[in-house]
């Protein structure tokens, strides 16, 4: 981050007085600053927080500042939308893919699965006394929802109507993997890092994990892993994935011209490329993808997956956390077998919508 800001200061002559806070404190800190008329000019936040700050008038539409998102992948630009206006620039994104242990799959004569049927069959085949076929995090937080969302969206579901048949089928499918014994029941307690730890330790043959695990996994001695797109319900479909990562937004009290100059620098091709390389993110600009692929070939599956990027919050906006929370509670209930998918999601829908 410092490297990026310094580079743009050198290019624009604009100095940045930077404050960095722990993630859970950021939105609270910004809201507090708004009440005391001391908002920072630029805010870098998780993309799921855009709706909250846009709704509160803390950040302004990019068009009001004169910032253009031309040149960025349209589906990634849409992540910054709230009520029809774009509020943020996401120069690069992270997302999920299917990681697999090449040695384990090779020994079992299994090639990486591409469909749900293959994933189910392969996970079962790869499961032994010491190794689960698949690991995924299903903790009862946004992380659980985030990691289950490719299965929901790729099956035609969404988080606006929690008890749709597509969602019921997706949760039933995930629960089936645990019922088969192919996924540990402990998945309901696992965060993303926990699931990756299982995978990196050789206790799971495959794992649903993010691009941010590359630095850690590449350091594990003798760990021969591969990465492919998450399987889809049917062959040849584009997987739908959530995209995470940070976005830049301009506060309501910022000097617009200066903010625009600096954000334009952050959004320039060379800065986007460098940021993506440094963070193991997928760059948001197609113009730099070829250079990026050459620099970081392991990111190829993540790049192809972002063609199906879906925004978590552009439709539900500030209501998203409520729906996500209800969904993750339902996910847990279904995975531990205390409820069937329909009952759990009916309850989740009622809790989230208040109907």
């Amino acid at each position, binding site marked *: 981050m410092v490297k990026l800001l310094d580079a743009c200061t050198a290019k624009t002559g*604009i100095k940045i*007085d*930077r*404050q960095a*806070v722990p*993630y859970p404190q*950021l939105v609270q800190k910004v809201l507090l600053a708004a009440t005391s008329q001391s908002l920072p000019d630029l805010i*870098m936040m998780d993309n799921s927080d855009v709706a909250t700050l846009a709704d509160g008038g803390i950040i302004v539409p990019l068009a009001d500042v004169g910032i253009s998102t031309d040149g960025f992948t349209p589906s990634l630009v849409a992540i910054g939308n709230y009520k029809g206006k774009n509020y943020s620039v996401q120069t690069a994104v992270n997302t999920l893919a299917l990681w697999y242990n090449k040695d384990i799959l090779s020994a079992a004569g299994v090639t990486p699965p591409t469909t749900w049927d293959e994933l189910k069959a392969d996970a079962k085949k790869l499961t032994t006394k010491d190794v689960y076929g698949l690991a995924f995090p299903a903790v009862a937080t946004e992380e659980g929802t985030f990691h289950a969302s490719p299965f929901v969206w790729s099956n035609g579901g969404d988080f606006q109507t929690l008890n749709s048949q597509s969602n019921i089928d997706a949760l039933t499918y995930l629960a089936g993997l645990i019922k088969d014994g192919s996924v540990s029941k402990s998945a309901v307690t696992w965060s993303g890092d926990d699931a990756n730890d299982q995978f990196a330790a050789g206790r799971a043959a495959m794992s649903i994990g993010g691009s941010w695990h590359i630095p850690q996994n590449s350091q594990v001695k003798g760990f021969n892993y591969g990465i492919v797109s998450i399987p889809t319900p049917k062959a040849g479909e584009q997987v739908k994935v959530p995209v995470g990562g940070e976005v830049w937004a301009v506060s309501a009290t910022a000097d617009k011209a200066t903010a625009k100059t600096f954000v334009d620098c952050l959004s320039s091709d060379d800065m986007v490329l460098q940021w993506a390389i440094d963070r193991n993110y997928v760059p948001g600009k197609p113009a730099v993808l070829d250079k990026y692929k050459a620099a970081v070939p392991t990111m190829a599956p993540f790049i192809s997956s972002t063609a199906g990027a879906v925004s978590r919050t552009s439709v539900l906006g500030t209501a998203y956390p409520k729906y996500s929370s209800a969904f993750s509670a339902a996910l847990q209930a279904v995975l531990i077998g205390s409820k069937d998918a329909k009952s759990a999601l009916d309850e989740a829908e009622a809790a989230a919508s208040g109907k």
Partner: protein
Amino acid sequence: MNSYVAGHRAIRSPAARLLLLSVSALAMTIPVAGAARAASLTSIDYFT
């Protein structure tokens, strides 16, 4: 800018024009001061 120039030309009194020129000169300093202030920005970001 165009409407300002038009209004300026419409003022015939030398005293009024002098006053307007003073105000105009003052106004011209504001963007310069603004630009000097705007050479820095505050930002907030997060770490996990």
